[in-house]
């Protein structure tokens, strides 16, 4: 590090400024160099760490989330002078979730950093989460110097070994001349094709090492190929199938949002009047207040979506991987339907559900291809009427008598009411997540930020931090959390306070790890083994201790005013909402069950 410090003396930087402006990759970089002569960006690369940070700058990174530590120090030393704003997190898990959420909301890979050993292993949950949900993200981990690698050195972990199963790709960087390009490549890989998390492991001698190599532009390796357009022959057959469908359904998954295909899908559905179901990661791909929307299907999907997906004869799945929480039991999933499956990842085709018409390609491109190929709308008047009838037969309503404890659905609706259509919701995992999904009306993509595939409790608060920094200023960020979930990562409140992030956390507090209790009631004879959390702190007071604003709700008549005050507060606020501890989530399809047989009450389970 002393080498680097010595080499970036102001004199040297000044001398080399002009030269750099000429071959500056971005207009911003040129302007920066113009305006401040001793800006760190303007000098040539002298170390591996500088090449790493230059690669991030070239990729347009604005924020990075991480925790400082021994092996990553050379990179932090360069970040110290960079325009990239580093958010120091209270725990690396929070860094990875914040980066993940940043990627979901902005569409650009979120960046997280950690040191070797425990720093890197703490990122693993967030990497696995991003991997399951195909979120673009890049992790940079420090590593012990190359000469110690393999010797069980202090804070050494085989990070690439540990993270191989939970990353799209990872690299052990072994050369200062190459390290910047490794980061550029990881950035491109995280974003292109099916997005996902990538990792670059950075031994300290490599980041400290001397180099004058500027990183190459973000570009995927030559062996990485993405097919953009679907095969015309299959596409024509699929279009014909859609034209002849009598009971068509569009199933929009998370890939629709990641592929920026929401608009194309909306146009297609509305033009051909095809009922739309969204998967949980696809929430917001189609406006839930539209007549054609049946909202979400699956384990806790609406009754009408589950009826429609079970009875359809043509299922057009776009950017969905047919997860078991959506399909329930495979034998009973859309069993009368011919399946048209659009996905950018060929490995998703016929992985879980056989695709009769596989359309491999980019969601936006393929939907445009389909829009061109489908000449006549399906004759589905009766089917649409049937879908509307299911809506009236299985309404998503709840009872909220004044003399009962506050019902969670009421709180979610009140939060939705108090915020704008573009407000972003983040959640933890559990009952609160399902209520937040069911009772909030989502109309825009990238406004639902949740942990789907991995189901990570503790995701909500760090995700709110990442989402807040990616969101527009006029977008509210609301974290709907559960007491058990919030307790797992609430140290992130210190970060929200330090950065004065305007987020509102509503903890739906039932003093249970509620989803587990619900399952115990249904399948384990009500034996509440380790699910009773009646030792919860008072979250409003805890928030105050962190320097956030604390609120508490016990009664219905406090709900509206308290929410209004919490939303209005300019900074992090936490509402400890004491909800009905007995409230359960319905409808419910038991694990591996038949979607059409969803339970509306406990005795139907």
């Amino acid at each position, binding site marked *: 590090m002393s080498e680097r410090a010595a080499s970036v003396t102001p004199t040297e930087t000044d001398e080399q400024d002009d030269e750099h402006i000429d071959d500056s990759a971005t207009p911003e970089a040129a302007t920066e160099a113009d305006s401040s002569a001793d800006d760190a960006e303007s000098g040539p690369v002298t170390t591996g760490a500088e090449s790493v940070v230059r690669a991030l700058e070239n990729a347009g990174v604005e924020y990075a989330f991480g925790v400082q530590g021994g092996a990553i120090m050379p990179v932090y030393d360069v970040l110290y002078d960079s325009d990239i704003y580093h958010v120091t997190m209270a725990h690396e898990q929070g860094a990875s979730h914040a980066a993940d959420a940043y990627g979901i909301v902005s569409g650009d890979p979120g960046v997280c950093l950690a040191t070797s050993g425990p720093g890197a292993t703490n990122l693993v949950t967030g990497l696995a989460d991003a991997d399951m949900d195909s979120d673009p993200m890049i992790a940079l981990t420090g590593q012990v110097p190359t000469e110690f690698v393999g010797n069980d050195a202090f804070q050494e972990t085989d990070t690439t070994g540990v993270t191989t199963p939970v990353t799209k790709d990872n690299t052990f960087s072994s050369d200062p001349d190459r390290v910047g390009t490794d980061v550029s490549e990881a950035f491109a890989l995280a974003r292109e094709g099916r997005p996902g998390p990538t990792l670059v492991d950075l031994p300290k001698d490599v980041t400290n090492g001397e180099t004058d190599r500027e990183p190459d532009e973000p570009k995927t*390796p030559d062996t990485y190929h993405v097919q953009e357009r679907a095969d015309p022959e*299959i596409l024509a057959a699929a279009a014909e199938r859609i034209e002849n469908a009598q009971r068509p359904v569009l199933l929009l998954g998370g890939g629709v949002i990641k592929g920026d295909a929401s608009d194309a899908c909306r146009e297609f559905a509305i033009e051909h009047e095809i009922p739309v179901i969204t998967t949980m990661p696809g929430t917001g791909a189609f406006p839930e207040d539209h007549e054609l929307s049946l909202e979400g299907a699956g384990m806790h999907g609406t009754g009408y979506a589950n009826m429609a997906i*079970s009875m359809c004869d043509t299922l057009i799945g776009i950017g969905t991987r*047919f997860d078991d929480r959506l399909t329930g039991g495979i034998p009973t999933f859309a069993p009368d339907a011919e399946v048209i499956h659009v996905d950018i990842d060929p490995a998703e085709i016929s992985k879980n559900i056989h695709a009769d018409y596989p359309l491999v390609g980019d969601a936006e491109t393929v939907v445009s291809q389909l829009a061109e190929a489908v000449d006549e709308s399906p004759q589905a008047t009766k089917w649409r009427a049937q879908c509307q009838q299911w809506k009236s037969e299985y309404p998503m309503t709840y009872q909220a008598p004044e003399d009962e404890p506050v019902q969670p659905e009421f709180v979610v609706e009140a939060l939705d009411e108090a915020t704008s259509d573009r407000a972003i919701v983040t959640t933890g995992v559990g009952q609160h997540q399902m209520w937040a999904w069911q009772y909030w009306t989502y109309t825009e993509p990238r406004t639902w930020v949740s942990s789907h595939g991995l189901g990570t409790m503790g995701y909500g608060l760090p995700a709110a931090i990442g989402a807040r920094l990616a969101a527009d200023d006029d977008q509210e960020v609301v974290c709907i959390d559960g007491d058990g979930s919030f307790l797992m990562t609430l140290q992130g409140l210190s970060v929200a306070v330090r950065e004065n992030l305007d987020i509102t956390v509503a903890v739906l507090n039932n003093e249970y790890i509620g989803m587990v209790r619900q399952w115990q009631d249904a399948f384990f004879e009500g034996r509440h083994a380790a699910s009773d959390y009646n030792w919860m702190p008072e979250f409003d007071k805890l928030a105050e201790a962190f320097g956030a604003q604390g609120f508490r709700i016990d009664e219905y008549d406090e709900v509206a005013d308290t929410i209004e005050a919490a939303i209005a507060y300019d900074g992090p606020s936490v509402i400890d909402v004491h909800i009905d501890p007995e409230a*359960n989530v319905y*409808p419910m399809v038991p694990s591996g069950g038949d979607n*059409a047989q969803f339970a509306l*009450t406990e005795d*139907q389970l």
Partner: protein
Amino acid sequence: MKRGLEGPPPEQRQAPVGRRNTQGIRIDPEVEARQDPRRTVISALVEHEPGVLSDVSGLFSRRQFNIESLTVGPTQDDARARITLVVEEPDPGIDQIKKQLRKLVPVVSVHELEPNAMRRELALIKVDAERPDQVAAVADMYGAKTVDSSPETATFEVTGSRQKIDAAIETFGQFGIREISRTGTTALARGTDETTGPSPAEASVTSAEAAKQDSYTQPADDD
């Protein structure tokens, strides 16, 4: 307070008529039966770089694919290595193996070899040498080369198909086998056929007919 939602109970709802099998295929007369596993050879060309073998073997273990053997070695191109995999799975599993392999960034191409491909395995078989004449006769029968002999033992090198090596081991068994080491199968396509398959981009399902029929190569007879 009554808990739950309003609506007709499960038994009063419409029900679909169809079913899918456990592989997600809609059950109709043509594809009703669950497919049986078959043994096949998959040849992958990969970047010759550290970690690639662990990427591939890790993929197989975490996705629970049934792997028979895996061999790896350099090719005529210094930058590329060839991994030869013998797997035993039903067709949808074999299809998934090929697709998942292609997703790995260091994997250049993946190709399932035709049943008539050349397949060879090498085995070193160390037997007791109490009856040298008979041992030599058996070795001769299988075209085995003597690579080492001592007063107590003789070690032979046998190459050939899996069945041939199985048979050789069984026959040598009468003398008392001390140790065996086998390499696993390596394979190349015959004649001018390419062992190196299509690149990942070309390998997606390219025709509606292929997608519909689930047609794959014929079951292998393993030489």
